[in-house]
């Protein structure tokens, strides 16, 4: 393992540059942008789950003074909102506005008016005649023979391609020979799992402001995880050259993946602005947002074969994914479930069959973990069960089977392979087990009182980005660019289009830049930028922000540093290799000096000023970077729960969370990621589920928080019972040894809770959320019918 050199800012808790703005409410989000003469936009949404628009009459709305937009007003360009996949893997099935509504809440028409009140009045004045079509509200209905089609055809690889049986996409992935593998197995276990769709519940709903100019160009402020992808897609739809579309980078109030795609209101707002010739702003309501996106509903059957000594020999996974009304990324999602599954444990023979189905529900999109929470749920619950069958401690057993140092790894799907070079799993499991009191955990099913306690463990990872070594043929686009510039006073502008969801990504990258060049963090500014003044960055997704985006900025910082040293070498008459730059707290500057010749020194400010006054030019660099690895950011969870057998309510008593994110750039914020992961993860494990009315296709919550509940801070264990540890690892391919953390922090939650509840009650739950009602129902059937000994459920081969 490489040793670390002395670090000045990385690894320290520092004040966030955007912190004061956020806590004082002066930070600007898209909905805060106010442009003179702007009108308010609003969207009319379908009350039906599936309906063709027979007619639409906007005259009354127009008579009120509103500008209206219907499918007849927008370019008939079919697109996919999320353009992270390489073009051959894009499934295009939507328009800005369409003549068919495919889920309740889908946009049908839009208006812009001088006031919000008038815009709402105008929306109510639009008359739509719907021809209501049969709605398929679950996969079973959509797959039925002769079920009406949700999409007749979609645009795929340049051709209108028919969709059969509402199956949007299937994937078959095979490694080795499972027939042979299962034949070699001493035991085989097969289990079925289900994870409910949930709402992202990010703080900010989607907003967009579009300002058109007389030359036909537009400026856009939008809630998005990628300003460049938003720009490219708007160009594709509205037929504008890229330079005429400027998308501004602006703070985001969290996304959890829900703005990975260009949000559906963005092109609508652009359409309204172009039609009205005025700036238009749309700020969606929470109800609109809940109807706009959710996490995929996933059903998985997993069959695993293993030897008497526990060695896994074969695995067969079948997955059905419900997409909702649009296929935003079904192909990729099916691929990552396979990838996350096979990268958790060594499996010589595997077969994976995935099917993604359209339904007339809210479209699903990426959400923190993107398939890993579900794949981990299935795998870690089965592995817990196998360990028990073998009479082994799950921690010890898993350590013999997992993919770690030196193993091949392809978390993001079969085209993204690399070798694991850093691995903190053994360390984290040891620390976590100690802190939670793993060895003192109860024997499952032995407790009798009202309150029963249990400890569960699960481990997972997320890929740091989707980097891979191949030059062509990748499923995903994955590169970042950055500009770093030395200003005339020795301060640095860090210029990057990469978005910060609120977790402090750009802050961490500023630290990498400060560290590399050798200036105090206070001398690095995070620039307020847009697409016109930055180079491309794919998206802040896939836990790639610091690892991949940061690596690009680091590359630019390195170029800048080399130029600084080159100029300083001339001015100080010292070989550049002998010069060092170090931050000086005292001077508030970077200082360039030669360790052997203390008099040979100057501040970065002096150098920059010299270059400026003598017209030597500006030191700046622009770099792009495609990472060639996507190393696993491991996370381990130990949770202790208490189940109230009278009410079925599960309380989290304690948790020990471990993260292997390589070098920890900002400990406080990294710990915050884990705490957040636990909170949302516990919600998904215990209470959260989007439900749709089987008759109307409406959300049971109707889009209101009142019933669309997540857990809150009150359910998080108290600080003294919340242990957070970081592994002491260094990732050779990461910037300063760093990997990712964000998504990884939620991935083990479902499994850890299921295993903990099993430990408390002796009952396995393979369907999340594990609600109080499900627990009570299981407890009462258990009383009646004594459970079969686990061994009996095994098929011995």
């Amino acid at each position, binding site marked *: 393992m490489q040793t670390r050199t002395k670090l000045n800012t990385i690894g320290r808790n520092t004040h966030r540059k955007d912190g004061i703005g956020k806590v004082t409410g002066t930070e600007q989000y898209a909905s805060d942008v106010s442009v003179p003469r702007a009108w308010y936009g609003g969207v009319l949404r379908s009350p039906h789950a599936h309906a063709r628009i027979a007619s639409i009459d906007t005259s009354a709305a127009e008579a009120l003074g509103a500008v209206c937009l219907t499918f007849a007003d927008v370019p008939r360009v079919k697109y996919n909102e999320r353009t992270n996949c390489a073009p051959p893997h894009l499934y295009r099935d939507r328009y800005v506005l369409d003549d068919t509504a495919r889920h309740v809440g889908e946009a049908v028409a839009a208006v812009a008016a001088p006031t*919000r*009140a008038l815009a*709402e009045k105008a929306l109510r004045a639009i008359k739509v005649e719907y021809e209501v079509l049969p709605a398929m509200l679950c996969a079973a209905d959509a797959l039925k023979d002769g079920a009406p089609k949700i999409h007749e055809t979609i645009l795929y690889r340049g051709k209108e391609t028919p969709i059969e049986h509402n199956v949007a996409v299937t994937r078959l992935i095979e490694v080795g020979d499972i027939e042979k593998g299962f034949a070699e197995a001493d035991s085989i276990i097969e289990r079925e799992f289900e994870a409910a769709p949930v709402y992202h519940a990010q703080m900010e709903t989607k907003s967009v402001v579009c300002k058109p100019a007389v030359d036909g160009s537009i400026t856009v402020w939008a809630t998005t995880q990628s300003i460049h992808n938003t720009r490219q897609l708007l160009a594709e739809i509205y037929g504008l050259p890229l330079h005429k579309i400027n998308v501004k980078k602006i703070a985001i109030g969290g996304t959890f993946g829900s703005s990975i795609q260009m949000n559906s209101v963005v092109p609508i707002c652009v359409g309204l602005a172009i039609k009205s010739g005025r700036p238009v702003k749309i700020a969606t309501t929470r109800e609109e947002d809940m109807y706009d996106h959710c996490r995929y509903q996933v059903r998985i059957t997993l069959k695993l074969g293993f030897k008497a000594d526990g060695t896994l020999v074969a695995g067969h996974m079948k997955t059905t994914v419900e997409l909702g009304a649009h296929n935003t990324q079904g192909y990729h999602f099916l691929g990552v479930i396979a990838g996350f599954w096979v990268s958790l444990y060594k499996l010589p023979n595997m077969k994976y069959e995935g099917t993604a189905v359209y339904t007339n529900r809210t479209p699903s999109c990426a959400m923190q973990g993107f398939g890993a929470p579900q794949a981990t749920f299935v795998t870690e619950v089965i592995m817990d069960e196998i360990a028990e069958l073998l009479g082994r401690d799950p921690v010890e057993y898993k350590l013999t089977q997992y993919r770690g140092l030196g193993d091949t790894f392809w978390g993001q799907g079969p085209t993204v392979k690399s070798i694991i070079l850093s691995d903190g799993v053994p360390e984290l499991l040891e620390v976590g087990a100690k802190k939670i009191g793993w060895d003192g955990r109860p024997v499952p099913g032995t407790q009798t009182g*009202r309150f029963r306690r249990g400890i569960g463990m699960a481990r997972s990872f997320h890929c740091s980005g989707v980097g891979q070594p191949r030059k062509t043929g990748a499923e995903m686009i994955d590169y970042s660019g950055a500009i770093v510039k030395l200003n005339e006073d020795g301060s640095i502008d860090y210029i990057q289009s990469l978005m910060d969801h609120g977790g402090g990504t750009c802050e961490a990258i500023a630290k990498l830049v400060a560290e590399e060049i050798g200036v105090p963090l206070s001398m690095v500014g995070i620039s307020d930028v847009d697409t016109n003044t930055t180079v491309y960055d794919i998206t802040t997704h896939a836990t790639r922000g610091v690892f991949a985006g940061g690596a690009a900025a680091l590359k630019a910082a390195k170029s800048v540093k080399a130029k600084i040293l080159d100029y300083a070498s001339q001015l100080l008459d010292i070989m550049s290799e002998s010069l060092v730059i170090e931050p000086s707290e005292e001077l508030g500057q970077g200082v360039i000096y030669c360790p052997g010749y203390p008099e040979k020194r100057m501040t970065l400010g002096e150098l920059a000023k010299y270059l400026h006054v003598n017209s030597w030019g500006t030191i700046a660099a622009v770099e792009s970077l495609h990472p060639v690895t996507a190393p696993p950011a491991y996370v381990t969870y130990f949770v202790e729960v208490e189940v109230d057998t*009278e*009410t*079925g*309510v599960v309380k989290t008593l304690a948790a020990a969370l471990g993260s292997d994110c390589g070098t920890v750039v900002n400990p406080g914020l990294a710990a915050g990621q884990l705490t957040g992961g636990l909170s949302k993860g516990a919600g998904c494990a215990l*209470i959260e589920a989007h*439900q749709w009315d089987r008759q109307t296709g409406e959300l*049971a*919550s109707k889009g*209101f928080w*009142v*019933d669309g*509940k997540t*857990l*809150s801070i*009150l*359910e998080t264990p108290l600080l003294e019972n919340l242990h957070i540890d970081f592994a002491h690892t260094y990732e050779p391919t990461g910037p300063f040894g760093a990997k990712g953390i964000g998504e990884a922090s939620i991935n083990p939650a479902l499994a850890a809770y299921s295993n903990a509840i099993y430990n408390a009650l002796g009952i396995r739950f393979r369907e999340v959320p594990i609600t*109080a*009602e499900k627990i*009570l129902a299981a407890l009462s059937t258990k009383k009646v019918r004594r459970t079969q000994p686990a061994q009996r459920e095994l098929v011995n081969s």
Partner: protein
Amino acid sequence: MFAEFDLEMPNSLDEAVLALARSDGIETLTLAGGSSLMVDIRARRVVPERLISLARINELRRIEILGPRITIGSRTTVSDILRSNQVAEHGAALAASAEVFAGQMVRNVATVAGNIACGSPAADLVPPLLSLDADVVLTNASGFRTVPLADYFTGFKQDVRRPDELITAISWDVPGAKCANRFYKLARRKGDAITVTGVAVTLGAANGVCTKARVALGAVAPIVMRARAAEAMLEGSTLTVELIEEASLKAAEECQPIDDIRASADYRRHAVHMLTRRLVAGAWADLHLATEVS
């Protein structure tokens, strides 16, 4: 949603009831904290043309004890209740429910009258008040009348209040020493969650016998209801584990829950059984007449 309405802000109770009397066919509603009404307006469940705000009427915001009665002004907020030693002493269940009511921001504006008048079977202050045999004072331009809370609700979101009447106070008898009062709210999470089942229990005792029993159930019927059959089983007896279990089962039988997104009817019935058992046993233990029954 955007809503347009006229807002009137009377300075006294007299002005307020006069303003209410002068509705002239204009859809008029009273606005207290707005934590229920503004939600309804935004969702267009109601479209009032005129709102009469009680925000300036300080005489309606008070907690006082006069002789044997404790009285709470109708505009007293949930936070006021939480801060009151008098309520803590003479309405333990009410204080307990204020503690688990919504979140801090809502508690600061939500009023007692608003909680009653919104008519929700899940209104958290109602079961405790019902278990304390509280009365509601209704006032209009020509005077006031007092209605027992037990007779106030006539059906789901329906009550005996006339459109020109304001709720001005809620009052109940200061309970004696031999009286215990408990409340528990079961919800999907701890803060800001609608009650799945709420139970309030008041027990009075003399000479080892339960002389008075009130079991009020929230969110398990069209209105907050009393489990009168269960109460009857408890009154006049010395409570035992078996009797408490029987009475709790009876309460579960009496309630009329529905299935909704928050819970199934079966779960709610089960919760009534469990919570009633736990609260009655706890209240009985409070009276130092028995040891805690688990």
